[in-house]
Structures are given as structure tokens and as C-alpha cells.
């Protein structure tokens, strides 16, 4: 790691990456990504289809290991998967829900796995799913699944929350809801990283904007 940027834990960073390379199969997806995200910041991640946004989020959630380079998430080395997993939550594109658990059960399961308590019915009401609480996730519509995943991210409120395409599949009310809930998360001090194709919508929540292109990350516009 260059210049020992992690020396001081007081100067807290949510994410620090130093020249991270990542190869998947025969493709090199990330070609030297360096990034510092101070704790509490919201970052919008842009990039064309296939640029590697999802891959970067999976890397930050310790789901993938960098081929080369180093990184820290909230002070934990990326290779220390257990530490990292304690601090993050990734809301994946497809929701990552159990198709055969009901909406309420899905939320309760996530809470119990985090040893957290939370108001499941309240969270469902918040995202407009009170009527579908007892319906299996398999039978929810695409947008309803997204809402459920959003409710989960909001309930868990991990210090670093990674969000993959939160606005896709949602109606206008749903998009406003995403902004509202994510803003609340930031208000609670969570750092956010949002991969999206709707810069205007995401930047309301996460003003700092980064663009991934050719495996490299570049700052975009005024942070």
C-alpha cells in the first residue's frame, strides 16, 4: 500500500483501494483502481454496461478477491473477509432473496443473521408491501422484489451499504422511495456506494460521482 494511508484510524475511511486489479475468467475487469471514500460519504458509480460496476461492488463486499493490489473497507483488509462482512451490506441487482420464503420471512432472516432487531412489518409498510408480507418472494413482481431488497438494506443499515441499480424496475413512487430511504441511511452516518444508470436520481443521494471505464475509475464533475 502506498504512503501508508491507513495509519490513522481516526481519519476514518469507508473504502480505500490501492491499484487493485481483478481478473475474472479470461477477462481483466479492473486494471488498477485506486479510491478513497471518507466515512459517511455517498458515491455514485457510473459506467457503461459491462464496465465492471457490479464487479467492483462484489469486490468491496469481499465476494471476490483482488487479483493484485490492496484495499481496506472500514479499516479491515479486503482479504480479511470476516471483518469486511461485518461492516457491509450489498443490495444486488436481482435482490438475492429466497424465492420460497415470504417477504416478511426474508427480512426476519436477514435481521437474525445480523443479530439485529428491527420492525419488519413497519419496514414492509414503508416500501408499500404490507399487502404482500405473506407472499413468497417467487411470486412478487420485479419491482416488488426490488422494494423488498430495499427494505432489507434500510433495516440493516450497515456502516457501508453498497447498492446495485436501485432504480431499475421501479415505478416513479418507488424511485422516490429509494431516494428517501437511502438519504435516511446517510443521515444515520452510513456510507453509500450506488451503481446506477440514472445519474440524476442517484446524485441526489450520493453527490460524489465516479465513472468506471476501461477498468479504471475516474472522478466526474464536481465532487
Amino acid at each position, binding site marked *: 500500500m502506498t504512503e501508508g494511508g491507513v495509519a490513522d484510524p481516526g481519519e476514518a475511511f469507508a473504502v480505500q483501494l490501492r491499484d487493485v486489479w481483478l481478473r475474472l475468467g479470461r477477462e481483466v475487469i479492473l486494471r488498477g483502481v485506486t479510491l478513497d471514500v471518507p466515512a459517511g460519504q455517498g458515491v455514485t458509480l457510473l459506467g457503461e454496461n459491462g464496465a465492471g460496476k457490479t464487479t467492483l461492488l*462484489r469486490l468491496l*463486499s*469481499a*465476494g*471476490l*478477491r483482488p487479483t493484485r493490489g490492496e484495499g481496506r473497507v472500514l479499516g479491515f483488509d479486503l482479504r480479511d*473477509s*470476516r471483518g469486511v*462482512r*461485518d461492516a*457491509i*451490506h*450489498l443490495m*444486488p441487482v*436481482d*435482490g*438475492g*432473496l*429466497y*424465492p*420460497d*420464503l415470504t417477504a416478511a*420471512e426474508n427480512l426476519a*432472516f*436477514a435481521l*437474525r*443473521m*445480523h*443479530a439485529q432487531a428491527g420492525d419488519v412489518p413497519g419496514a414492509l409498510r414503508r416500501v408499500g408491501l404490507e399487502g404482500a408480507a405473506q407472499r*413468497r*418472494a417467487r411470486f412478487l413482481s420485479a419491482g416488488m422484489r426490488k422494494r423488498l431488497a430495499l427494505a432489507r438494506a434500510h433495516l440493516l443499515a450497515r456502516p457501508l451499504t453498497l447498492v446495485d441499480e436501485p432504480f431499475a424496475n421501479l415505478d416513479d413512487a418507488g424511485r422516490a422511495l429509494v431516494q428517501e430511504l437511502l438519504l435516511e441511511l446517510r443521515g444515520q452516518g452510513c456510507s453509500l456506494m450506488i451503481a446506477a444508470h440514472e445519474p440524476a436520481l442517484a446524485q441526489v443521494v450520493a453527490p460524489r460521482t465516479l465513472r468506471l471505464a476501461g477498468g479504471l475509475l475516474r472522478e466526474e464533475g464536481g465532487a
Partner: protein
Amino acid sequence: MRQALTVAAKDLRVAGRTRDTLLATAFFAGIVLLVLGFALSGGVVSRDARLTAPLAAGAIWTALALAAAVGAQRAFAQEQEAGALEQLLAYPGPHGALYLGKLLGVLPPLLLVAAVTVPTGLVLFGASEAVTAAGRALPWAALALTTALGVLGFAAATTFYGSITVNLRAREALLPALAFPILVPAVLATVQATRLLLEGGWSPEVTTWLTFLTAFDLGTIILATLLFPAAVEG
């Protein structure tokens, strides 16, 4: 441990709801009993416990080993669907707990299948008749203990390999192919214990086998819990 229980409770709830694991497991156990039953009964039919006991024991335990493989595979395939596995692995806490949770989730349906397979197998292969013909009662309690220990061993090994093969192509066939060699000592021990029980009831030899089986179960579970994180980590 809390996590293990949470995962197990979730799996059991899903299993109770969809029942597909139970069905698939029973299907495979059924095929084995059916084929072997027909094949072996067609030849030399015998009422002699010394002949029927090894056959019955072999058939029953092959069937259960397979059923365990199928059950374990389902347990992970179910996570895989809709990308829930990656999500599961991203929860905080040690990954070893997830292995234990999966194991606890796999066990009850398997025990259920075993509870049907063992008596069916004994009747089908004439072992129960041979035993009662010899004027003894079937040692049900001892058989149940053997079954429980055997199923636990099978489930422990196959669940571990299930986590490895879940992401791979051809996983349905791959899992049993990988897990069976490891299961051989367990199969051997259960077959011998069952055979001895059928032939002459409880004896010190049976105790030896059951002790061995217990050691196998414990060893497998401990080893698997330790290696599981390395097997699944991103």
C-alpha cells in the same frame, strides 16, 4: 451457533413448504431399493439371515448414501437460485456456522427418508422374516441408533461437498462422485453394524463399529467446519 440455527430453521421452513428435497431424496432411495430388490430376489432367494443380512444392509445403505448426496445438493442448489448463496456468504460471522446450519437443515428430511427406507429394505430383502424365523425379535432400537449415526455421517460429508460443487457444471453427478470415496468407511461401518445386528443382535463387535462410526461423524464435522470457509470464500 445462533447463525447455524437460523440457517437450519430457514432451510426446514423451505423444505416443509416446497417438499422438493424430500421428494427427490425419496426418489433416489426408492430407485436403489427397487432395482436391487428385483435383481437380488430373482436369484437365490433365501430365508437364511446369513445370506439376506449382507444384501439388505448393502442395499439400504447405498440407497441412503445416495439420498444424502441428493439432499445436500438440493440444499445448496436452493441457495444458488436467485443469487441467494452469494448473499448468504456475505452475512457476518464465521462461515463454519453456515456449514453447521446447512447440515442441521439437511438432516431432518434425511432421517425421515431413512425411517421409511430401513424398514422397507428389511422387509423387501426378507431380512426381517429371516430374523423372526430364527426366533429373535428385530433389534429396532439398535437399528435406529445405527441409522441415526450413519445418516449423520453421510449428511456431514455430502453437505461439505455440496458447498464445493454447487457452482460447478454437472454438479448433480459430481457431488456423489466426490463424496462417496470419503463415505466408504462410514458405509462400511454401517453395513457391518446392520449386518451383525440382523444376524445376531447386539454384540461387542457392534459396539466397536458404532464407536468407529461416531468417531467418523465427529471427525468429519470438525474437519468440514474448519475447511468450509476455504471452500466457499470469494
